């Protein structure tokens, strides 16, 4: 496997030894570079996702989607982004101005924060704390407050209604999301992102193989809860454009709206990315225990595996979104509190039993 830390170590040595910069300056330069890389990656992936969503949606509805701008509509998203950037940002009269301005920033903060935890390749994990998964769920929960404040600050009854719904829905689904991650952590024995992937490298070591029944249940519940957490259909109660105009971002224009839009798409990617990391082995390649096959698979770089798995899950979530009708808010809450959460708790016990008795694939 290609180890990306060779590159980072080389760069670190370049700054420290070749250029003779001190501790402070070299760390500062590295932090700025990594931060820029995160933001550029965030923006680029958002563009890809928006284009993918429009095309997938179009083909599910027997349309062609955007076709005019560029070959096969490839430049459409860039045109949209440009349009969004040059739109005027205005503030609603009688809105609570501080909250109105802070809300999109909180939403994007939670999203970028969670995005930085994704392990891209062997040695290319940006935030790799020993409390990784726990911190990830903590940071992503800030987004809920952003959405609520957006609805509250806009001084619009539709926005407030949508914000309440979104907050209730996201808080509820966070419970099963975290329980699923805990189920996975029991088996991997670590909360560190790189450690979780490390525990899944080797023949049939991906968590859904290694942990068989409980891991597969946790995986599916994670995808359902993640879909709800990202506020996407069939759980897109927060926006519900037929009843609540555009929900909590009704009153936002230009990049204010752009931030919500970006965060929504990236949350989809983050959910898929975490599911791919925790349950499908992240950058771990397919290994089946036959040396020749494994060697070939190991030549494919980790980022290709990670992106492949993540975009596969993104595609499945889009498929679900464009296939199922929207649920009512009471149905959404019932699904979570009466079915998913009890199932997760039972599953947690099942996983503990499996691990304690050593019934998983070693």
């Amino acid at each position, binding site marked *: 496997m290609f180890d990306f830390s060779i590159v980072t170590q080389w760069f670190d040595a370049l700054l420290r030894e070749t250029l003779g910069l001190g501790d402070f300056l070299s760390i500062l330069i590295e932090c700025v570079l990594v931060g820029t890389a995160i933001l550029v990656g965030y923006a680029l992936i958002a563009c890809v996702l928006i284009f993918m969503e429009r095309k997938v949606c179009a083909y599910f509805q027997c349309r062609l989607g955007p076709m005019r701008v560029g070959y096969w509509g490839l430049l459409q998203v860039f045109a949209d982004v440009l349009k969004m950037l040059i739109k005027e940002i205005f503030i609603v009269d009688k809105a609570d101005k501080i909250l109105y301005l802070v809300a999109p920033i909180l939403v994007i903060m939670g999203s970028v924060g969670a995005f930085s935890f994704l392990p891209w390749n062997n040695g290319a994990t940006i935030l790799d704390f020993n409390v990784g998964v726990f*911190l990830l769920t903590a940071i992503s929960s800030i987004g809920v407050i952003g959405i609520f404040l957006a609805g509250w600050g806009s001084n619009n009854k539709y926005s407030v209604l949508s914000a309440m719904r979104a907050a209730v829905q996201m808080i509820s689904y966070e419970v099963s999301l975290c329980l699923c991650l805990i189920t996975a952590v029991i088996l991997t024995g670590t909360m560190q992102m790189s450690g979780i992937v490390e525990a899944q490298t080797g023949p049939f070591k991906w968590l859904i193989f290694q942990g068989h029944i409980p891991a597969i249940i946790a995986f599916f519940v994670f995808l359902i809860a993640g879909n709800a957490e990202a506020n996407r259909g069939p759980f897109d109660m927060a926006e519900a454009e037929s009843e609540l105009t555009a929900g909590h971002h009704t009153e936002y224009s230009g990049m204010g709206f752009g931030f919500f839009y970006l965060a929504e798409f990236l949350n989809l990617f983050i959910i898929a990315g975490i599911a791919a990391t925790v349950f499908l082995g992240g950058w771990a390649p397919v290994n089946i225990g036959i040396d020749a096959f494994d060697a070939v698979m190991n030549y494919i770089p980790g980022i290709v595996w990670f992106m492949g798995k993540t975009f596969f899950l993104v595609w499945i979530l889009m498929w679900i979104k464009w296939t199922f009708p929207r649920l009512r808010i009471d149905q959404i809450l019932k699904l979570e509190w009466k079915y998913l959460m009890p199932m997760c708790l039972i599953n947690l016990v099942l996983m503990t039993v499996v691990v304690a008795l050593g019934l998983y694939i070693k």
Partner: protein
Amino acid sequence: MANIIMFIILAVFIIVSALMCVATTRIVRAATFMLFVLLGVAGIYFLLDYTFLGAAQIAVYAGGVTMVFVFAIQLVSKRALQGLEKRVKAGTMAVGALCALAGLVVVSLILLKAGFLTQEIANVEVPMKEIGTALVGSGKYQYVLPFEFISVFLLACIIGGLVVARKEEEA
């Protein structure tokens, strides 16, 4: 050096947010500024390499308690929500100042008595495994009893909340 710069940035951020939190007349704004204070404190934990406490701070306080406050605020009267009521009175100010002074005295007493200021503390990340076993272990310096007590307490709170909130069907 970098630590001191980060500490100063965080400290200024915390103090400004804390002042704004008590000075604003709109109650949702106060909750938002409290969120900033809590995030700043989490930042200080990260600065001290105490990542578990930092993560718990964000999860429990920033993610949980602030949301609970925001929901509770929805029950407040409309005039208070829109900042129409002037609520800063001289008496409240005096009580607030007294509380702040008492807090300062207590914290400085603890700091001086335990000698935290002069003590050199190793700057290492505590491994998650150690924290986990300490939380649910029953040996010396392990915390299974308080842990279980708090969980039972929280359960009682949830049941109490449900009993209060539940509307009985009219018979």
